[in-house]
């Protein structure tokens, strides 16, 4: 994506009246795309890493004794859930920092993380349903972990909906920081209450970890490696999403500056208030 921030727009008649000098200065020196040396190298590494994960997951690792071929979903499902929870934590932490520092940087970190996190949460839910169908014979179980992941997804959609609907940037920051801050506590409350509810009704859960299956050797390595690749992918998406958000805000600033300049030129006032 490329935004030409250097295009020679109409010169402002009175620079001192510029709406936001600092922001406009940033716009001139800001990158014109979302790619950088770092993201290109990371992207290249991720392509290679992703291919390696696919090879390890489909070819190199053996099928599981208990689960058979369906165990290969583990290498998608478990890394994506780790990243989804990490993104959700990052959104909450960045929202908390925003409430103290109130800088655009933290606002964009929180929102970019939420958006990318929503994608990973969706991948988690879908791969989990496929895996559940294959191993338990049902895509859904009213378990605390499944239910709270679904609620995490819904809460993230609410957060993103609120952000998308709020036009004023300061209001957007305040409102989304409150929702972002409450994101993790809300998921924990849902998790605890569902856990409590199900533990009263069910003796055993499908998620018994004792002797369910053990993971070791190449399978363990593949899992860890897939998680590293997933985290790298998250970082890559996060950086790009952050830069898109940053450039979108700069483009909006410039549009306002230009509109002001046009109005002043029409009045021939040279920008006097």
């Amino acid at each position, binding site marked *: 994506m490329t935004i030409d921030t250097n295009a020679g727009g109409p010169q402002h008649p009175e620079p001192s009246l510029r709406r936001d000098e600092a922001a406009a200065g940033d716009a001139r020196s800001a990158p014109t795309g979302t790619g950088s040396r770092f993201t290109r190298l990371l992207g290249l590494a991720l392509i290679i890493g992703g291919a390696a994960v696919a090879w390890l997951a489909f070819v190199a690792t053996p099928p599981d004794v208990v689960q058979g071929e369906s165990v290969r979903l583990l290498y998608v499902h478990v890394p994506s859930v780790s990243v989804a929870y990490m993104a959700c934590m990052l959104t909450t932490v960045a929202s908390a920092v925003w*409430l103290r520092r109130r800088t655009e940087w933290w606002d964009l970190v929180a929102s970019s993380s939420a958006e990318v996190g929503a994608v990973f949460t969706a991948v988690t839910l879908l791969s989990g349903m496929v895996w559940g169908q294959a191993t338990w014979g049902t895509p859904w179980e009213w378990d605390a972990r499944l239910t709270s992941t679904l*609620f995490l997804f*819904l*809460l993230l*959609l*609410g957060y993103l*909906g*609120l952000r998308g*609907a*709020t036009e*004023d940037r*300061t*209001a957007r920051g*305040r*409102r989304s*920081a*409150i*929702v972002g801050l*409450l994101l993790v*506590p*809300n998921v924990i*409350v*849902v998790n*605890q*209450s*569902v856990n*409590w*509810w199900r533990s*009263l009704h069910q003796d055993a859960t499908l998620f018994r970890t004792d002797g369910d299956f053990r993971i070791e050797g190449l399978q363990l390595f593949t899992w860890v490696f897939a998680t590293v690749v997933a985290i790298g992918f998250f970082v890559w998406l996060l950086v790009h999403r952050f830069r898109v958000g940053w450039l979108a805000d700069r483009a909006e600033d410039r549009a306002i500056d230009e509109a002001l300049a046009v109005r002043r030129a029409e009045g021939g006032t040279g920008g006097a208030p």
Partner: protein
Amino acid sequence: MLADAWLIAAKDLRLEWRSRVTLAQIAPFAVLVLVLFGFALDPDRGLLAAATPGLYWVAVLFASVLAVQRAFAVESTESSRDILLLSGVVPSGVFLGKALAISVQLLALEVLLLGGVAVFYGATLRGWLLLAVTVLSATAGIAAAGSLYGVLATGLRVRDTLVPLLMLPVLAPVLLGATRAFEAALEDTPADGWPWAGLLVLFALAYLGAGVAAYGSLLEET
């Protein structure tokens, strides 16, 4: 803070008394939801009786979305918020006042709906102490969380569709807890219900605290 809360609550309730939106629109809607559940789950098959506590609280939640939207629709014009700020009322007072006014209206609705489930679903109401504590604590939680998430969407064009999406996932634990507590009360095994009532009290306190802390930041915006 409490004096301000009282002022705001009195103002909102006076507005409601004069406009009668809750009484004339939200209450009939809530009763309608109960009746629609009756159509969906054939009353003769015993499903309604078994599902009574859950259906009751789902009806309450739907009605509470409307009540919250109504509570913030009256503040939605830019000038009314300015007037609220200029009047020198502290933000935490505004929050508590809003929550109190919503609670009073919801409590009236819940009493009406209790009558509704007794009449339409043939529910036998008992375990009154547990019922009362559940209704009070769940209502406080719904009103507190509703006031916090309701104010976030004020002034937005998509307010009406956004409020339920923000509010209902957060209120899911209240539905869970209140339903289980009601089940225990109606089945005359109140001991099973008290821990859930405790959860509801904690939820209400947590959201009352969060609202008091967050409202200052949310109201200062232009």
